[in-house]
């Protein structure tokens, strides 16, 4: 099964890094959608089937926490697996975010951390992937 993924981050560079990390993760990745804020993300979620969302917190227009709240309140989207990818370091904030049934990855992240977290939250692991630990090799 290939996963359709939505990446939500106001930095195009970070969206690209996450997408490329996913593509070399060993996961079967289907379509990758990108949104630069929560508002764009909600539109994409309403119009497309998405299996996994990777969401930054600090974004203009609509931040990641508001997006997560809106998703969890929507019966059609409430079960969507979400991974927060953020610079947020406050332990209290991270606990608060995790209470919304999301996983958390702290920036900067090693590629294998992203891969393992995605495997964990989606339950998909083909067990054959290997990632370079210190560099991309696109």
């Amino acid at each position, binding site marked *: 099964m290939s996963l359709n993924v939505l990446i939500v981050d106001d930095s195009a560079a970070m969206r690209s890094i996450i997408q490329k990390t996913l593509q070399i993760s060993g996961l079967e990745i289907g379509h990758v959608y990108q949104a630069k804020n929560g508002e764009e993300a909600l539109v994409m979620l309403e119009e497309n089937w998405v299996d996994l969302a990777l969401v930054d917190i600090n974004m203009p227009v609509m931040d990641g926490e508001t997006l997560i709240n809106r998703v969890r309140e929507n019966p059609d989207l409430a079960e969507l697996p979400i991974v927060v990818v953020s*610079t947020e370091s406050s332990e209290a904030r991270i606990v608060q975010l995790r209470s919304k049934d999301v996983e958390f990855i702290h920036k900067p992240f090693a590629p294998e951390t992203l891969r393992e977290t995605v495997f964990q939250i989606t339950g998909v692991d083909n067990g054959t992937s290997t990632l370079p630990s210190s560099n991309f090799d696109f």
Partner: protein
Amino acid sequence: MEQALYQAAILTFEELGFIFPIERPSDDECENEESTRVSVKFNGSVSGEIVLQVENTILPTIASNMLGTEEPLEDEEILQDVLGELANVICGNTLPSIAGKNEVFRLEPPRKINKLEAGEKPAAIAHLDVEESRADVLLYLN
């Protein structure tokens, strides 16, 4: 505080930029015409900003590393975005070390600045050598 800045900067360059900076002997001269600069302001129990400046000789290579391209990237918008993300991550990783792990901060979006504010003295500076080019991270507190 300075050590926290160095640690956050080195970790960020290594894990995000796939480049390995080393500490440069400190000097008072941070202004460099051939650099690109961004600022990230933060508000919380302490407020201020972090300025990241990277020499233009190395920035395209860092951008290429981050985005996984074969050739160094020259597009100014991409370089700004890359530098802004680096500054954002350095800021997010420095603040817990100076204010505590439970403090919550609001980070503003990175913005380009053309030069360092004359007369303003940073609370801490991390001077880095990045493959024979210079990068500096300056922490200002209000």
